[in-house]
């Protein structure tokens, strides 16, 4: 089972990695966007980390405050997308003090669905969904199958990576870059890239602590 404290550690790990990639992500956004994506993600996850887990026992309550903290820190596109995902996940987790692997998969599903509802984007629109949707779907599909969680996550991460890479040849169809049409082709979508960083942080924690997750 995953404890509240571990979620906090996950946010810390994501925040650390996003911070390291901050300039790289801004550069990606500079290609067809306004060059601020690394900043927004950095600020957003730093805000989520700043919520102290010690004051909570209910994971739902904790995640709701993290969501609001993220939303407070970031507007742009990323604020409402991740904010909505966190809020949807928080709703599911309300009343829980620990999460099973199934709970996690369910929350990822709900979160990504929230992003899709908020942003109205489809697979192939050159957004973070091109990373997140394949990941979430592969993970869910593998839920009842044989094999370790570590392996399942690894497979899902391969799909996430392929999805992210596929945005390179896409034409942006939504959001700020869509106004460039054909000219938006040729660069990885920054949101897709940062989503991969987020997932990778989660995946690495899973493989490090594979025992706990199995528990």
């Amino acid at each position, binding site marked *: 089972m995953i404890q509240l404290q571990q979620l906090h550690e996950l946010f810390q790990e994501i925040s650390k990695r996003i911070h390291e990639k901050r300039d790289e992500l801004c550069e990606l956004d*500079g290609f067809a966007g*306004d060059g*601020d994506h690394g900043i927004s993600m950095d600020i957003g996850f730093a805000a989520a980390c700043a919520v102290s887990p010690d004051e909570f026992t209910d994971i739902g309550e904790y995640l709701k405050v993290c969501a609001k903290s993220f939303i407070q820190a970031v*507007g*742009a*596109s990323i*604020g409402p997308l991740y904010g*909505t995902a966190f809020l949807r996940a928080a709703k599911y987790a309300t009343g829980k003090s620990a999460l099973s692997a199934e709970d996690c998969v369910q929350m990822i599903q709900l979160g990504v669905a929230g992003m899709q509802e908020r942003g109205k984007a489809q697979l192939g629109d050159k957004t973070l969904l091109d990373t997140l949707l394949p990941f979430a779907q592969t993970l869910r599909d593998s839920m009842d199958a044989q094999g370790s969680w570590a392996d399942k996550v690894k497979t899902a991460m391969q799909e996430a990576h392929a999805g992210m890479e596929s945005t390179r040849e896409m034409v942006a169809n939504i*959001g700020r870059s869509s106004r460039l049409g054909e000219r938006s082709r040729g660069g990885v979508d920054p949101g897709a890239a940062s989503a991969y960083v987020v997932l990778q942080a989660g995946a690495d924690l899973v493989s490090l602590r594979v025992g706990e997750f199995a528990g």
Partner: protein
Amino acid sequence: MKKILNNPSDFVDESLRGIVLAHSDMLRSVGDPRVIVRSDAPVRGKVAIATGGGYGHLPVFLGYVGQGLADGACVGNVFSSPSADAMLTVTKSIDGGAGVLYLYGNYFGDKMNFDLAAEMARDEGIQVETVRVTDDVASAPAEQMSKRRGVAGVFFVYKIAGACAESGASLEEVKRLAEEVVINVRTMGIGFSPCTIPASGKPTFEIADNEVEIGIGIHGEPGISRQETAPAKELVSQLLAHLTADLDLVPGDEVSILVNGTGSTPLEELYVAYKEAHSWLSQKGIKIFKPFVGEYATSLEMAGFSISVLKLDETMKALLQAPVNTPFIKQL
């Protein structure tokens, strides 16, 4: 980049601080310096109007906060949406019990944040409705009206919805009228030269010395064509041909028009455009009721202008004449 600023990352907050310091009699910020409401908010029993969006478009958005227009606004970074949290704060600060209308330009980032804010506000028991302004004819074809962006025509929606709210109408009525205005307003712009976003330090687009961008967006989004500069008469008739066709205007119709400067185009030139618009419309038998000329929605120091046309009925005419008093826009 020669600009009046200190650290580019402090630009928005320092500018807002200046606004609140200079106009403390009419505006105040609520916690977050990027959330600004009229000083008498909430006005009890009045439908409140909230707006917001990226910074760099003054008097859009803060400039429309005051008597006869909006009740509160929040802004994000330059050309970037403010957060849903800021919008929620505006909402809670201006709700006078009669509900809140979210009224803003149709940009996806703003929509996502306002929608999330509306969800959160409703959770807290506040009635919220939304109207998005879609006046930019160059941003999508007529059949996809809901995809069109909001530009300077938002002025007319603030003006008429604001006057309507001030008159004591219900949230449903204010919303319905705002939608009516949105259906009847069209805008098209021409860009001469770009602006520079302080944080990036680079021009928003490139354009040759003898070229103009017809149908440019308020953040420098490409329009429908790039062509050689032409005399004022031609540029204006090009815009008006698009606008009046899109609005299905016929001789005898009455309109208000707004000739809007996008930043660095001199007022003197805007009046040349107005003169041309006046004679073009007169020739077509279209009557101008109450024209507006000036900077009503800018893009920092972008050079260029836009023309907005609003097809009027008697209700709109009456509300167009109602008084306005904000630090940026006044009407007696």
